[in-house]
């Protein structure tokens, strides 16, 4: 009962903490709300007219929305990049910041579900895909699997984050017997969400570009490059703006791990490219569309090469210890690898998978204004969720905002009030 009461206070205090802040905080929240509004207006138009307001058509039936979805599943999966060393090797400096990775995963998953929701033609029928209520075509459909694992992963991370913060808030040490198994479970779960998402494409014999056995490993390798890149920048921002102490050591360790995954990612990309280009079967047309252009259509070519070059330069920056311990080159590397993977796992994956289409037609797809506006809105929702979580979590983690301090403060107010 007391726990329930405490939990209620935890919720109300959290609400209070996220609704008060500095001018900059309000400006940032206001900016995100503005983007969300723009996205909502664009989405309202899409609901009214149908998906015809996008540039997707029968030939290229998935585009910007699903590209972003795929990329963000990777970001969500990358939370384990921090969890693995923290818990397997019991490495304290990273352990403290694991909760940040989990919050990033939650925000990424919210965006993932948002992108799926805006992509479907009949959002009013969303309940058809809900387990038990609708009729999920499980285990046949990989999309059914994806619905299950994504939601399970979301619940798991949400529970762990809430539990850890609630413990910090009530000034109790968390129960290791609860947290450790859940965190360990999140490792295979993170691998599974990205594997299942890769299988979604991988299992389609109709699309040779996706129908490659190393697609899932490539997904994981690239996710473990881009996800931590976001975190590295974030950790530096948090160090500057809050009292949260994050050791250089932790950041450099993550950077070192990233160097390995980036090398592996480049290797896998090279392996795939070699197989396609050297054997030169008719399946090469998709690679050709991506890397060199096909029949005069070369929309993707500059992006594809930018992705490869960025990925390679970032790899060098992370590989050489002198560069990855220098803040300027480290941050340049983070931005480059993020951009590289965003292209590779977004449009660089979806579009050549569908172009040329199943009957050899080339339909040149570029996202419409509506698609970009809706996507901006969804990204803003994710950033908003992350900002609000951080706003509440940081003082709780620092022990600045706890139930006894709150009670003391309100008792003081009570006492100061004239009788």
């Amino acid at each position, binding site marked *: 009962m007391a726990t329930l009461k405490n939990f209620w206070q935890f919720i109300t205090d959290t609400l209070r903490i996220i609704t008060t802040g500095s001018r900059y905080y309000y400006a940032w929240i206001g900016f995100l709300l503005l983007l969300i509004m723009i996205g909502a207006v664009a989405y*309202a138009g*899409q*609901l*009214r*007219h*149908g*998906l*015809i307001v*996008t540039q*997707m*058509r*029968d*030939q290229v*039936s*998935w585009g910007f929305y699903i590209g972003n979805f795929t990329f963000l599943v990777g970001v969500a999966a990358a939370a384990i990049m921090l969890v693995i060393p923290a818990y397997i090797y019991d490495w304290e400096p990273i352990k403290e910041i694991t909760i940040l990775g989990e919050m990033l995963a939650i925000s990424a998953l919210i965006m993932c579900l948002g992108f*799926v929701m805006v*992509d*479907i*033609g*009949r*959002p*009013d*029928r*969303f*309940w*058809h*895909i809900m387990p*038990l*209520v*609708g*009729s*999920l*075509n499980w285990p*046949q*459909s*990989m*999309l*059914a699997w994806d*619905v299950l694992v994504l939601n399970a992963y979301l619940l798991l991370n949400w529970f762990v984050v809430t539990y850890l913060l609630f413990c910090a808030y009530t000034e109790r040490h968390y129960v290791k017997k609860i947290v450790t198994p859940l965190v360990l479970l999140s490792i295979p779960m993170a691998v599974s969400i990205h594997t299942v998402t890769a299988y*979604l*494409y991988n*299992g*389609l*014999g*109709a*699309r040779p570009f996706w129908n490659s056995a190393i697609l899932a490993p490539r997904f994981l390798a690239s996710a473990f490059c881009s996800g931590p890149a976001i975190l590295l920048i974030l950790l530096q921002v948090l160090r500057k703006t809050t009292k949260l102490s994050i050791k250089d050591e932790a950041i450099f360790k993550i950077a070192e791990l990233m160097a390995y995954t980036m090398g592996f990612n480049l290797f896998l990309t090279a392996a795939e490219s070699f197989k396609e280009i050297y054997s030169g079967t*008719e399946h090469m*047309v998709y690679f050709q569309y991506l890397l060199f252009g096909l029949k005069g259509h070369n929309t993707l070519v500059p992006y594809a090469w930018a992705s490869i070059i960025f990925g390679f330069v970032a790899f060098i920056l992370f590989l050489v210890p002198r560069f990855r311990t220098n803040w300027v080159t480290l941050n340049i590397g983070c931005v480059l690898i993020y951009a590289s993977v965003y292209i590779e796992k977004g449009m660089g994956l979806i579009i050549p*998978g*569908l172009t*040329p*289409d*199943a*009957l*050899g*037609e080339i339909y040149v797809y570029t996202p419409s204004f509506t698609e970009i506006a809706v996507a901006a809105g969804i990204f803003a929702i994710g950033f908003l969720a992350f900002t609000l979580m951080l706003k509440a979590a940081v003082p709780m983690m620092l022990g600045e905002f706890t139930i006894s301090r709150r009670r003391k403060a309100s008792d003081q107010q009570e006492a100061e009030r004239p009788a």
Partner: protein
Amino acid sequence: MMDQDSHQPAGSCDGTATGCSEGRREFLGAAVAAVATALTGCGKLTKEEFLQHSFRELSKDEVLSVIARLEKEYKEKYGKEVKVANTPAIPGVIFGYALDLSRCIGCRRCVHACVQENNQSRSPEVQWIRVLELDKEEGVNLQHAEHYYNPEEVPREGHFYMPVQCQQCKKPPCVKVCPVGATWREKDGIVVVDYNWCIGCRYCMAACPYGARHFNWGEPGLAAKDVNPDTHYLGNRPRPKGVVEKCTFCVQRTRKGLYPACVEICPTGSRKFGNLLDKDSEIRYVLENKRVFKLKEELNTQPNFFYFYGV
């Protein structure tokens, strides 16, 4: 008998729901329906339509009341009687199709007859048959296919023509991937879609190796004068926006013993259709006496649609 049922009130499906699905329905309140109405982008979604379950899970009575509701809706929308049949597969029939590539002249009459028969959206126009113009020197090489050929006269020198539509696979990848089971293979081998259950995720379109599935990107533009009132629930009834559709071998015709519209219109007799289980059928004659091939055989989709060179 169906006439009688069509006079039932549209909401009667609630009363006839089975215990299990009743519970599920109650779980979803009217509030959810209201949100869902907003999500369709129009204010016309009824509670019955929103709560309607997958076609294969409906009881006989529920199907009849759904059909009654649809017929009423179509009458309001198009101002004429539209019949929605629910004819099941005929026992002992599996439909097969064969297309003679040496006779086809690429006139696209099949494409347009199909659109008229099957109530496709005219604007934007949805076509279930795509005729490819191929180079004689290349053979069946889709990377050399011309989709939008438009000469004064067909056939063009040096070319041959290959119409592609749903191949009604025995192992349809589209059915396998559908997350909600809104598409399936009927007993007579026809792959159908429940337009009232499809969520419009388009995974089936990514999975189909034949480009046979089409999406209603916008509100289907079908004028009242163009409506073919002789429809089937799983076939050519007018579709809503945001769902996938495809060739059904004209299920509304073929289950009554008629030829599909594309077979009937073909001026060269390139299109052969019949019961694969009937030894005396024309389709069996083709399989026996011509050498046939399947499109993208290596994918093991096992089409019931065959191509052959008849001359």
